[in-house]
């Protein structure tokens, strides 16, 4: 290989403004959960008849017991932060193609009555208070269309 060819420019090609829309099935149980948020601003979970664990969002199979679940139970719109972070780096959300505005608070919330965590945005106006164990409450959007984005965010209470 000659010195000249070593120095030749290395080209890349770009995918351009390509986009590909997807449609994801939410399923019967998930649809019920989202409809409950849309219509009543409430959360529901599902309880395993064997281990008693309450899953939010609801799904058909308890992974631990491998049994089909069908007992829907109401859970609170309030809960506790299990783990959390305040995200300060920008990235493109591949579901929308838009840049996520930063900083934003993000936590896994154990709603009262649930045994699993719901991951969602936390109002981080007061970042010092976004802590493991802090109490939070859901705030819903005025116009709701049956997606998780019907929840505006969770705000700190107490």
């Amino acid at each position, binding site marked *: 290989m000659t010195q000249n060819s070593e120095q030749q420019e*290395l080209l*890349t090609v770009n*995918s351009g403004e390509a986009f590909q829309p*997807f449609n*994801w099935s*939410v399923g019967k149980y*998930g649809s019920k959960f989202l409809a409950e948020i849309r219509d009543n601003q409430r959360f529901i979970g599902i309880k395993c008849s064997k281990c008693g664990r309450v*899953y*939010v*969002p609801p799904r058909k199979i308890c*992974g631990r017991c491998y049994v089909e679940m069908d007992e829907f139970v109401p859970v609170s719109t309030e809960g506790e932060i*299990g*783990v*959390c*972070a*305040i*995200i*300060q*780096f920008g*990235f*493109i*959300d*591949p*579901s*929308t193609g838009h840049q*996520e505005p930063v900083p*934003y608070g*993000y*936590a*896994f919330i154990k709603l009262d009555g649930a045994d*699993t*965590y*719901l*991951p*969602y*945005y936390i109002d981080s106006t007061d970042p010092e208070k976004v*802590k*493991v*164990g802090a109490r939070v409450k859901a705030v819903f959007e005025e116009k709701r269309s049956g997606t*998780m984005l019907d929840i505006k965010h969770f705000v700190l209470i107490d």
Partner: protein
Amino acid sequence: MGKRVAIVGFGQTYQRSSRKDVNGPELINEAVRTALEDAGLTIKDIDAIVIGNMDHFEGVNYVDSWSVEGSGGVMKPIFKLTTGGTTGSTVAMAGYYHVASGIFDRVLAIGWEKNSESDTTGAIVTAFNPVWERPRFGGAIAGLAVEASKYMHNYNVTERDGARVAVRERLHALNNPYSHLHQEWMKSMEIEQIVDLLVSSEENQMLAYPLRMSDMCPRTDGAAAVIFASEDIAEKIAPRPAWVVSTHNRHNYSLLGDIDWDNNDTLEGASKAVFKDAGIKEPLKEIDVCELYLPYSYAGLKWMESIGFCGPGEGPKLVWDGVTDMDGELPVNPSGGVMSSNPIGATALLRVGEGALQVMGKAKDRQVKGGDVNYAFTTGFGGCNWADVMLLGKKKPS
């Protein structure tokens, strides 16, 4: 009972932030050629190939098909695997199973990634549930930051504790010419000084508390290849092969909200199974070296506890005491680990290959224990807390 299996060859590319000088098949070929040369084999000797990466990262699917010239796989049986961060350890496990079954004698396991060709965070987000976890899930950094928040809360762990792990990884990387990050400036300073600098520097950007730039792995272009051989021929190919003593993996839940954030139970489960197979009762004493998939600094504390190297909350002391440094009782990541090089589909295979080098006594400047390694413990980690574990050993398993 299947065949016993050993690693007889390992090859890797130089891991760099961007390898614009090669396309995918050419990058793969660099690692394959190096592995064949290491084992003294030709591509004709290879019976089957297992290859993996995260195909949607590069936006090009079917790597098993389009890379055949580079992998050497023309008209050979090829399996493709894509399991996220564990892709490299999964191709290793599959390579092992192919040979252990008795169906193939020499199998090539390949992992690769060109992270420079994608938006890695955007790509990682697509690995998570579109209905329940997107869009607020900010990829690997956010997922790991939340884990750190709980660990810090539980045990009063500080940012300095995390930084101590990062410093170890980057200091070790200075011994590894293949590593992506070489932070030469660290050489002239004391560990405590570097730690203080990292946690106080404004240039060391906060990404998501408590994770700064220095707490995270980089995005890397690179490839790795490992050759597995059956017990019938392994010692003829390599005078001192690295035997696969045991390997296990564990998955738990599909949604991150179902995870037990206090423990990495998949890593714990897979590690326990491997130690049981090997008859290891005191992992800290009996394991000689680790190549652990630690994608961020706090994993080097908490996950040490999950594996069973120390009790809950004892990770920071173990690391500060120097136990996991090159000259410590249990050197961790002599290669510099994931925090110094992260070509995602290759990353976990690099752990296996580097572990094999340690057992074979071929790790050069990053060799530990003067080349006398009995057991090397390697892991792979995937985004929703799933884990692969492989224990390599000097002695042929009974």
